[in-house]
């Protein structure tokens, strides 16, 4: 029996633009997708819409002046950006920061991680169709931003660390308010989890989507929750402790099934661990100075140095090259975790449906300000 050769439907592949003005692309990411019906045959991310030449600007500025510009890269996690730059500069200049400064930095960084993960939680859920978590997350994120505002006057672009310590003393009562927030937070995380963790729709949309095997994750250079979601226990805070993370007790959660759902669980657990870190830091917070006796004008030796911190998105590294007695970087390269994590997107979405690409972009937790710099 021979049927007609012409197929019933038009099977030609179709190319569409996903973004750059699409709410699910978390900014101005454009993905050129080749579709076979609903299925993704090929995806090609196109980036650079937010390129501001930050690395070029660094080369024209004295070391301390670079710090405000680091805020504007990953703009939902400014404190960790500051921290990365300061940690690298201290490595280059040989400055040891006082313990109180290190603890304040860790508190700020972990609050920032909570705030950043809340934005991820809200946007990831809203992309997939769960609108409710957004309201809870932003309500609680606002409390964290209030703490930031009280500390340094800014809510988003904090500019709150200096090479050699932190610029401001903690305001009166700040520690108590921070502790109250940290103590109340685990209950809030439970609240979010009741909305999603056992939600049937959520599970259907995330389990088995965007699977990355551990070998592939290393090959693609993934860091942060995407790497840990693939079952590799690796966290800069543990392997190359900066500030005083070696004095803090916390767990590094890892995933088992390497899919979007596991990465979701990893991030939720990371939020709980951040709360633990904040509580320990507040308990241990030592007295003393908050700035090292660093010279007013910082002069570096000739050399190249790389320092990195565990940003909410992954390993945020700074590679700084200096000439002899330089007061500004000859070159300052940022290793943006989002940029490198995004590279795995085509491999993760191939064969999935268009709607799953939204889930995968959400699970990579990209920030375009950091990708394009």
């Amino acid at each position: 029996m021979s049927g007609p050769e012409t197929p019933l439907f038009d099977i030609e592949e179709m190319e569409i633009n996903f973004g750059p003005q699409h709410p699910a692309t978390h900014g101005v990411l454009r993905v050129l997708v080749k579709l076979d019906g609903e299925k993704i045959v090929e995806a090609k991310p196109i980036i650079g819409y937010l390129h501001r030449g930050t690395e070029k600007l660094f080369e024209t500025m004295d070391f301390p002046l670079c710090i405000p510009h680091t805020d504007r890269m990953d703009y939902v996690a400014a404190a960790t950006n500051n921290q990365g730059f300061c940690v690298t500069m201290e490595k280059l200049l040989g400055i040891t920061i006082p313990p109180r400064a290190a603890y304040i930095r860790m508190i700020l960084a972990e609050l920032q991680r909570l705030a950043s993960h809340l934005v991820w939680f809200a946007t990831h859920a809203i992309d997939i169709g769960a609108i409710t978590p957004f309201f809870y997350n932003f309500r609680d994120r606002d409390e964290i931003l209030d703490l930031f505002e009280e500390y340094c006057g800014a809510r988003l672009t904090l500019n709150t660390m200096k090479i050699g310590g932190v610029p401001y003393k903690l305001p009166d009562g700040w520690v108590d308010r921070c502790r109250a927030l940290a103590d109340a937070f685990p209950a809030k995380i439970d609240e979010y989890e009741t909305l999603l963790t056992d939600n049937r729709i959520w599970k259907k949309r995330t389990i088995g989507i965007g699977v990355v095997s551990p070998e592939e994750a290393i090959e693609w250079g993934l860091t942060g929750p995407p790497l840990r979601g693939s079952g590799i226990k690796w966290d800069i805070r543990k392997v190359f402790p900066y500030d005083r993370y070696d004095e803090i007790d916390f767990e590094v959660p890892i995933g088992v099934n390497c899919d979007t759902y596991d990465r979701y669980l990893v991030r939720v657990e990371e939020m709980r661990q951040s709360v633990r870190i904040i509580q320990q830091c507040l308990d241990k917070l030592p007295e003393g100075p908050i700035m090292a006796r660093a010279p007013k004008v910082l002069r570096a030796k000739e050399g190249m140095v790389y320092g990195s911190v565990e940003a909410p998105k992954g390993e945020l590294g700074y590679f700084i090259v200096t000439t002899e007695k330089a007061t500004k970087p000859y070159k300052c390269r940022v290793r943006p975790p989002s940029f490198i994590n995004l590279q795995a997107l085509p491999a993760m979405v191939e064969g999935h449906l268009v709607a799953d690409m939204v889930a995968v972009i959400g699970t990579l937790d990209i920030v375009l300000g950091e990708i394009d710099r």
Partner: protein
Amino acid sequence: MTDESSTPPEDVPVADDQQKAETDADAKAPEKAAEAKPKLSDEEKAAKIAAAKAKAAAKKAAEAEAEPKPPWEEKPMPPERIDAADDPEVTALAEGVEGAVLAAGRFAGDLTVRVPAAKIVDVCRFLKEERGYSFLVDLTAVDWPDREEGRFDVVYWMHRFDDQARFRLVAVVAEDQVIESVAGVWKVADWMEREVYDLYGITFANHPNLERILTWEGFNGHPLRKDFPVEGIDTGAAIYPDVYPEGGGPPPPPEKKPANGGKA
């Protein structure tokens, strides 16, 4: 631009105990000076010298007695460059790939090895497959416009999970040279090399898809080169050559005649 005009680093202020020791010594000095005043100038000098010596000795003693200051009270201790030619990682690389190691050093704990650009793929493959550096953390370049041996440093920064060791390779590439792509060794190098190509104009041979990534196709120039102006270039003509004339920018507005015909 403020390099030359800026002031040199300030010295670390003296700690309290030191200051106390100094004031003690100072208190003794006037007594001696007062005794010596009516006498001859030679003796006066001798007394002053003795006072200065006593002061220095007191300061030294105070320093020796005082507990060592915590590191954040001390002057910063910039890291020293250490020769690392006999580091086990470096010797292993030198044995594994012939002529691979040109120089090796350690600065601030980072191990850096200079390798010839022609052997970069061999070296990377060896490091990944034999030495376990399975993770390429970063790949970038540095521009040295006036350097004789080649304009660009291409920098590879890799990681080994077994013992959390890190390793940096630096390969020198001249402006008219190409360097082999390592995207076949680590997939992650793909976008990193595209970025270096885009921002520095270094061509990577055998790259799967060497296109601009942060700037757009048709952009004229490589922004991170030192001779690219920080304030940027006029790119209007490059994006819409049919809309914007050569030289860039929108066309100048048509000249308006004064309302009164130019008469005063």
